[in-house]
């Protein structure tokens, strides 16, 4: 495995290859020119240079990349400098041979730290000593050696700075990759969280549906007791009156029998005056005064009782909506009326209920659910008023009104109850939030109302003042004119 800095070095060497070869050729040519005519020397230069070039090509092709660059270059530098020193010595140190030292120093870099420097310094020392001994004035080798060392130091520092930059960029790339990995992990986690959230949203929708069903059952249970009471009362007096009618009729029949007896006796010639006491006694036995006074009244009241029972039973049927899950065109005013009838038991002891029903288009909604919303709000209104009465306030009033607004139908339920304290205004629609005593409510009524109204694309809002009362306003989209809207007068 070639380390990245080696790769860079190899890359550099290859790129500099042409210059190196050109420079080597140029120095060689200059050297040859300097000894031109002395063919013996020319031959030595040519043979020496060809051998060095061949060696260098071998290093580039075969050794570099297989050995570490450091070993390869140390070998190359040592061989080249030795060859140059040998050639220089052989041909008597003409000026161009001095070019080899700085040229080689240019190649010195951090890959060849101690050995390369040693090789360079040794070469400098050997070449300097050899040339001075050979009679060359000392200024020339000294200048060349100093400039060579400068070049080597310079190159080395540049290379080291570049290498540092490379390492930094490597590190940055690694950091970037790590950051990328972290980002990918975060993304996956986000996706998972998203999925969980979606699951939770679905579960919540499901729970809301179950809540709706549960609250339906709860209100049906509570209403059932109320409805039973509302029916038991008329059944009581209708039964009483029926019993009375039965007895009174039997008494009247007995009285008529007595009258007929008397009639036949009078026909047979008896004196009416003598029979009068018998009639008076029969009338007393029959309780005639009471019966004539109360019998017609009892029958009238019985008819009233039957009407009451009929109205309740009809409202229960309307409220129950056998097709509870279907969205249909619903007459909201009729829904209000039937809900008020079956919820009568909840409010009749505490409040008078007034309806102000405007002319409305039919609303496309689930009638059963909307009934439940109205019921919940009316029951709450009755409880709020009941709380006020418990605190000594007079009988209250619930106003249920409907009107046709812009693109919507508005249903308002206004009570004169105790009001909702401002500090709980933001919680009243929360499931299970309740201020009612145990057994009076489980805190689902308004949560359900809110869920149902939202489901129908409507809004539910309220305004409340402590001690004055509360108004709930429901807006449902009037929407979907399926055929001409049937209009119902208030």
């Amino acid at each position, binding site marked *: 495995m070639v380390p990245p800095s080696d790769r860079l070095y190899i890359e550099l060497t290859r790129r500099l290859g042409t210059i190196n070869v050109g420079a080597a050729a140029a120095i060689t040519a200059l050297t040859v020119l300097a000894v031109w005519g002395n063919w013996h020397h020319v031959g030595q230069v040519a043979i020496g240079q060809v051998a060095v070039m061949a060696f260098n090509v071998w290093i580039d092709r075969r050794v570099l990349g297989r050995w570490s660059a450091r070993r390869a270059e140390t070998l190359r530098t040592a061989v080249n400098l030795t060859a140059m020193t040998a050639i220089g010595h052989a041909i008597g140190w003409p000026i161009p041979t001095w070019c080899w030292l700085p040229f080689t120093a240019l190649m010195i870099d951090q890959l060849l730290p101690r050995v390369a420097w040693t090789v360079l310094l040794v070469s400098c020392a050997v070449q300097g000593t050899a040339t001075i001994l050979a009679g060359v004035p000392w200024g020339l080798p000294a200048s060349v050696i100093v400039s060579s060392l400068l070049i080597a130091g310079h190159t080395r520092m540049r290379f080291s700075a570049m290498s540092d930059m490379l390492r930094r960029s490597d590190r940055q790339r690694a950091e970037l990759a790590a950051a990328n990995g972290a980002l990918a992990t975060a993304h996956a986690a986000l996706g998972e969280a998203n999925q969980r959230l979606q699951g939770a949203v679905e579960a919540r929708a499901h729970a809301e549906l179950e809540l709706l069903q549960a609250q339906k059952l709860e209100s049906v249970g*509570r209403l*059932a*007791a109320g409805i*039973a*009471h*509302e*029916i*038991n*009362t*008329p*059944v*009581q*007096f*209708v*039964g*009483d*009156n029926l*019993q*009375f009618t039965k*007895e009174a009729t039997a008494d009247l029949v007995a009285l008529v029998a007595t009258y007929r007896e008397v009639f036949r006796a009078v026909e047979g010639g008896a004196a009416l005056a003598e029979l009068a006491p018998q009639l008076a006694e029969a009338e007393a036995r029959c*309780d005639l005064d*009471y019966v004539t006074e*109360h019998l017609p*009244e*009892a029958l009238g*009241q019985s008819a*009233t*009782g039957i009407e009451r029972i009929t109205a309740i039973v009809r409202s229960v049927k309307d409220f129950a909506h056998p097709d509870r899950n279907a969205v249909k065109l619903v007459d909201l005013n009729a829904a209000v009326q039937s809900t008020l009838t079956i919820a009568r*038991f909840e409010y*009749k*002891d*505490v409040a008078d209920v007034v309806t102000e029903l405007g002319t409305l288009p039919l609303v496309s909604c689930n009638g059963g659910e909307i009934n439940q919303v109205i019921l919940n709000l009316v029951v709450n209104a009755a409880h709020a008023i009941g709380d006020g009465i418990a605190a000594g306030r007079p*009988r209250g009033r619930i106003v249920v009104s409907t009107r046709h607004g812009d693109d919507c139908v508005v249903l308002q339920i206004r009570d004169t109850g105790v009001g909702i304290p401002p500090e709980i205004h933001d919680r009243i629609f929360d499931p299970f939030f309740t201020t009612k005593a145990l*057994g009076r409510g489980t805190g689902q009524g308004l949560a359900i109302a809110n869920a149902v109204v939202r489901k129908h694309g409507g809004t539910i809002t309220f305004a409340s003042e402590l001690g004055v009362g509360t108004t709930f306003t429901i807006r449902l989209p009037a929407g979907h004119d399926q055929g001409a809207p049937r209009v119902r007068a208030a």
Partner: protein
Amino acid sequence: MTTRPRIVFVDDDRLVLSGLQNLLRKQRHEWEQVFVASGEAALDELSRAPADIVISDMRMPGMDGPALLERIRAQHPGTIRIVLSGEAERADVLRALPAMHQFVAKPCSGTVLREVISRALRVRSAATAPIRAGIGRLAHLPVRHDVHADLVRAVSTSGVGIAEIAVIVSNSLALSVKVMQLANAGVFGAPAQPIVTVDAATRHLGAELMRTLVIGPGYLVPLAPADTPGLPRDFFYQVRERAVARAAAVGDPTSVEHTAAQIAEVGGLVLALAEPERYPPLVTAAAGDPVALQHMERAHLGIDRFQVSIYLAGLWGLPPPIEEAVERIGAASARAGSR
């Protein structure tokens, strides 16, 4: 005129009142019947002239049935308090429990209503005025403290069956009579035929209702010996032992006689609470002799404990066979004493 029993009917529905008036028209000379449409009006009527019986609806605007009966309990304890209601919610019915003597479910027939009234008037005439007032004042059902603790434990522990609860109930004479009353009142589903054993009555009411009854506020109060200072500490155990011994002598635990034998002694408890001044000395003087005690009760209070039990059975509307069986037990005990 003044000796006619006076009955006040209270209902916010005028049609119910006129229906009742028509229903009871044949008794209008026999009973003075007053019909009023509110609790307030009923209290006015009672302060004008005391009534023997008040029959009230539960749900009324303003003062409702339980509130009215509670006021009557405090102000006119001698008046018998009957609820006539179409109420179907058990919890609401239980609210009236402390103040009411009987619950009659709407709709009820003329025969039932007349029978309820006649019976109440009959048992009433058998009790003395101080006893009536003393019993009328009792709002809560006293249950021996150890039995009460057992009951609370039993209904609070899951897995305790209704049979086990029934056994504990039968350890309290007063509670035994109460469950018999409730089971037969038809509030909680009318029984097909009169329920005459404590076990059957408890089962009929069910574990859930027993739980409400036991731990609900104010229905039962634990009674410790310290609450009845004049009485011997083991008085309540003595009463209980006599009841158990008499019941054991009957044998068949499902018979009316067995139940009657158990609850015949409840009158002694009622006397102890209704006559806290006069009764304890008699108990002390009798020194554990039940027959001697019965004679002293008759001599000093004008009524013996069996007669009080009969009064209570009639007042609370227990099945008549039980009342008759208690009557036989009282008579037998009196005969045993005279021999």
